[in-house]
C-alpha cells in the first residue's frame, strides 16, 4: 500500500498544527461556530447528538494492521472502545471531545491516517472496490488513480468551498463493487478499441433527497488526463452549482437540470484549455505510486479446493461461510476472505477495540498485514492462503466476525441513525437488529439467496437505501418513527433506484413486512433467480399486496 514520503509526512503534520490553532481560536472565542464549522468538518469533526463525531478516512478502503491498531488505540483512549465503519470506507467515533481532537489527529498522522476532507463542501474520501488488486474479474487496480486523486484533492485551494460535498468512486472491475453510478463522479476502468486502458467517466449520480443514477460524460478518458478532466468538472460545478438552496446544491442537480449534453459541452470547453497543461499526469509519478501497489511476493502454492471441500463436508457452518464469505483470488492457492461485521443483533459496521486489535493480528498472521474496508461495512483480508483458511475461520468465529451471511439478507447496510446522528428522523440500528435476529437460519438465508437490505435513518441516505434490493428509509410522523420501504434498487453496473412500496410502516411492522416480501419472492421466483431479478420481472404489485393488500389483511 501507499507509504508517505517526506512531502506527505510534512503535509499531514502541518495540517494537524493548523487545526490545533483553529481549535484554540474557537475555544478562545476568536472564531464563531459559524466560522469554525467548515474548518472542523474539513478535518472530519461533526457535532452530533451525544458529543463530537470524528470521521477518519480509509483511502480507497486500504488499511495496514498498524493503522488498525491505532484505530483501536483511539477507541480505547478517546472514545468508548468501539468504532463504526461506514458506506464510504471511513471509520467513525461518536464520543470525541473537541479539545482532544488535535491530539487524536496527531496520533493518526503518525501512522499516515487523516480525517482531512472526510466532511465539508469539498472532495471527500475517494472510494474503490474492496477487492482491488486481487479479484479475478478485475481489469486493473484502480488504487494508483485513487491515490493520485487523493493527493490532488487535498486542500485544493480552488475547490475547498464548493456548493456542497463531492464524492468520487473508482472501479477497476466490470463488476462494480464501488457503487460508482451513485457518486458525483464515478469512474469505470476499461479498454478502448485500441486496447488502451482508461476510464469511462460518469457524473451526477448521487443519493439523498433527489437520487440520480450517474450519466456518462465521457466514454473513455486517458489516464494522463485524469486530473485535468476532474478539474474541469469541478470548476464548472464550483462556478455554476447552486448556492441558494442546500438541498439543490449537488452536481447532480445542475447535470440533470441542463442535461448531460450541455454539461459535457461546458466541461469540454474548459478542459480543452487545460488538458495539456500542468495537470497532465507524468508517467514517473504513476510509476512511483504504482510501485506501492505492486502485488506482494506470493508463494507458489497448489490449489487447495479439494482439501477445503473435505473440511466443508464435515462442517456445515464452515461450508456456508466459505460459500459466501470467501472469494476467488487471482493467484492460485490464495483466497479473499471477508470478515463480517454483521453478527445477528449487532449494529452493522460496528467493531470493538479488542476486535480491531485481533483483526490487525490476523492480518499480520494470515494476510500480509493488510486489511480492506468495504462500503458494505465489512472488512476483508485479501491475501489468505487457502491452506490457512480454516484456521483463520476458527479465529474469526471466536471473535464473532464469521457470520456466514455475506451478500445475503442479513448482510445489511445501516447508517448510525437517530441513536447517534443529529440529522436522522428515526433509529435505523434497531431495524437492522430486528431483521438480523428474525433470519438466522442458515439454510433459509441460503435459499433466499443474494439480497441487499440498506437502511437509512433519514433522506440523506448514508445507508444507501435507494440502491438496496430492499431499501428502508426512516421518516418522522408526529414524533413517531415510521419506515418507508423501496424495492428493486441496485448499486452495481446495472444500477437502479428503488421504487416506493407504500405508506410508511411503524417500527414493529418492518420485520414482518420483510418476511412477507421474502415469502412472496420465494413463491414467485423462477429458476432460482435473485430477488432483484424477480422484482424486475414481476414489478411492485405482488409485493405491495403481500405487505399492504388483501393478502396481508387475511394473514
Amino acid at each position: 500500500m501507499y507509504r508517505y514520503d517526506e512531502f506527505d509526512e510534512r503535509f499531514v503534520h502541518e495540517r494537524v498544527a493548523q487545526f490545533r490553532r483553529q481549535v484554540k481560536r474557537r475555544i478562545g472565542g476568536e472564531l464563531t461556530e459559524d466560522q469554525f464549522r467548515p474548518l472542523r468538518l474539513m478535518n472530519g469533526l461533526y457535532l452530533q447528538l451525544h458529543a463530537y463525531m470524528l470521521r477518519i478516512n480509509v483511502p480507497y478502503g486500504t488499511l495496514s494492521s498498524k493503522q488498525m491498531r491505532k484505530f483501536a488505540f483511539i477507541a480505547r483512549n478517546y472514545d468508548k472502545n468501539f468504532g463504526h465503519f461506514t458506506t464510504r470506507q471511513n471509520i467513525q467515533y461518536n464520543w470525541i471531545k473537541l479539545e482532544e481532537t488535535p491530539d487524536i489527529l496527531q496520533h493518526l498522522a503518525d501512522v499516515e491516517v487523516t480525517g482531512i476532507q472526510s466532511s465539508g463542501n469539498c472532495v471527500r474520501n475517494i472510494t474503490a472496490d474492496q477487492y482491488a488488486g486481487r479479484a479475478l474479474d478485475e481489469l486493473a487496480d484502480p488504487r494508483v488513480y485513487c491515490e493520485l486523486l487523493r493527493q490532488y484533492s487535498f486542500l485544493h485551494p480552488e475547490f475547498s468551498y464548493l456548493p456542497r460535498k463531492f464524492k468520487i468512486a473508482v472501479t477497476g472491475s466490470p463488476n462494480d463493487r464501488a457503487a460508482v453510478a451513485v457518486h458525483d463522479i464515478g469512474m469505470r476502468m476499461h479498454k478502448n478499441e485500441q486496447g488502451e486502458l482508461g476510464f469511462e467517466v460518469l457524473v451526477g449520480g448521487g443519493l439523498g433527497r433527489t437520487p440520480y443514477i450517474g450519466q456518462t460524460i465521457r466514454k473513455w478518458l486517458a489516464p494522463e488526463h485524469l486530473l485535468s478532466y476532474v478539474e474541469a468538472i469541478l470548476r464548472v460545478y464550483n462556478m455554476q452549482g447552486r448556492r441558494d438552496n442546500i438541498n439543490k446544491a449537488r452536481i447532480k442537480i445542475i447535470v440533470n437540470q441542463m442535461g448531460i449534453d450541455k454539461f459535457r459541452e461546458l466541461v469540454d470547453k474548459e478542459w480543452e484549455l487545460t488538458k495539456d497543461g500542468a495537470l497532465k499526469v507524468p508517467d514517473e509519478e504513476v510509476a512511483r505510486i504504482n510501485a506501492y501497489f505492486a502485488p506482494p511476493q506470493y508463494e507458489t502454492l497448489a490449489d487447495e479446493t479439494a482439501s477445503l471441500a473435505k473440511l466443508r463436508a464435515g462442517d456445515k457452518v464452515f461450508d456456508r461461510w466459505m460459500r459466501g464469505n470467501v472469494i476467488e483470488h487471482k493467484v492460485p492457492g490464495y483466497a479473499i476472505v471477508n470478515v463480517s461485521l454483521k453478527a445477528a443483533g449487532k449494529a452493522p459496521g460496528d467493531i470493538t477495540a479488542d476486535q480491531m486489535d485481533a483483526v490487525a493480528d490476523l492480518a499480520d498472521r494470515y494476510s500480509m498485514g493488510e486489511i480492506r474496508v468495504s462500503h458494505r461495512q465489512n472488512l476483508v483480508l485479501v491475501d489468505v492462503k487457502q491452506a490457512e483458511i480454516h484456521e483463520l475461520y476458527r479465529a474469526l468465529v471466536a471473535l464473532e466476525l464469521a457470520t456466514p451471511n455475506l451478500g445475503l439478507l442479513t448482510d445489511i447496510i445501516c447508517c448510525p441513525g437517530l441513536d447517534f446522528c443529529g440529522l436522522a428522523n428515526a433509529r435505523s440500528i434497531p431495524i437492522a437488529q430486528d431483521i438480523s435476529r428474525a433470519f438466522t437460519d442458515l439454510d433459509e438465508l441460503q435459499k433466499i439467496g443474494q439480497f441487499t437490505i440498506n437502511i437509512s435513518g433519514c433522506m440523506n441516505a448514508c445507508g444507501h437505501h435507494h440502491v438496496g434490493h430492499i431499501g428502508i428509509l426512516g421518516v418522522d410522523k408526529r414524533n413517531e418513527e415510521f419506515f418507508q420501504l423501496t424495492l428493486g434498487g441496485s448499486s452495481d453496473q446495472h444500477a437502479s433506484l428503488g421504487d416506493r412500496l407504500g405508506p410508511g410502516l411503524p417500527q414493529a411492522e418492518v420485520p414482518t413486512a420483510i418476511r412477507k416480501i421474502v415469502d412472496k419472492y420465494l413463491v414467485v421466483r423462477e429458476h432460482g433467480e435473485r430477488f432483484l431479478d424477480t422484482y424486475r420481472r414481476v414489478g411492485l404489485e405482488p409485493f405491495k399486496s403481500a405487505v399492504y393488500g388483501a393478502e396481508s389483511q387475511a394473514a
Partner: protein
Amino acid sequence: MALIKNGELVESPFVDVSGASEIPVAGSVIVSLEQWQAQRTALLARGTPLGIRLRSDQSPELVAAELPHFALVALEFPKFRDGRAYSYARLLRERYGFKGELRAVGDVLLEQLLFMLRTGFDAFELTSDDPLRDYRIALADFSVWYQPAADGRPTAMQLRHRKG
C-alpha cells in the same frame, strides 16, 4: 478596513464606489459591473486607474476582453463559504493573464487566506484585529502543496521528480 497588499499593510489609493449612486469626477475608483456597463466611456475618459468589483455570481468571463482597462479587480466573498471567487481568481490570472491587483473583499478571514493566495489574490481586505499577524500565520501554515494553482508554487509531484 485594513488592506494587505504584497504582505504589507497599505492604504488603498482606490475608492470603492461600487455601491454608491454617484461616481466622483476625479480619483482612482472601483466600480461595479453595472456601473462599468452603463458609464464605460465616461469612466475611461477620467484617465485615472480603474478598478472593477465583481459579485460572486458574476464570472470574470463577462469582463475578460476588457481587462486591459483595469488596474484592479476586486472579487467578493459575500460569505466565506461562497467559494466561486477562487475559480474566478484562477481564471483571471491563468486564463486571461490579468496582471493587476487582484483583491479579495467581503468575508475575508485568516483561515481562508492561504487558499486565496494560492488562487492568485495579492491583496486582501482582511477582517481582523491584527491583519498583518493573521496574514503571516496563514502564509506559514503549509510548505507542501499538492496541486498546481495560480501562485506557481512547485507541487510535491514536481519536486519529487526534479531529481530526474
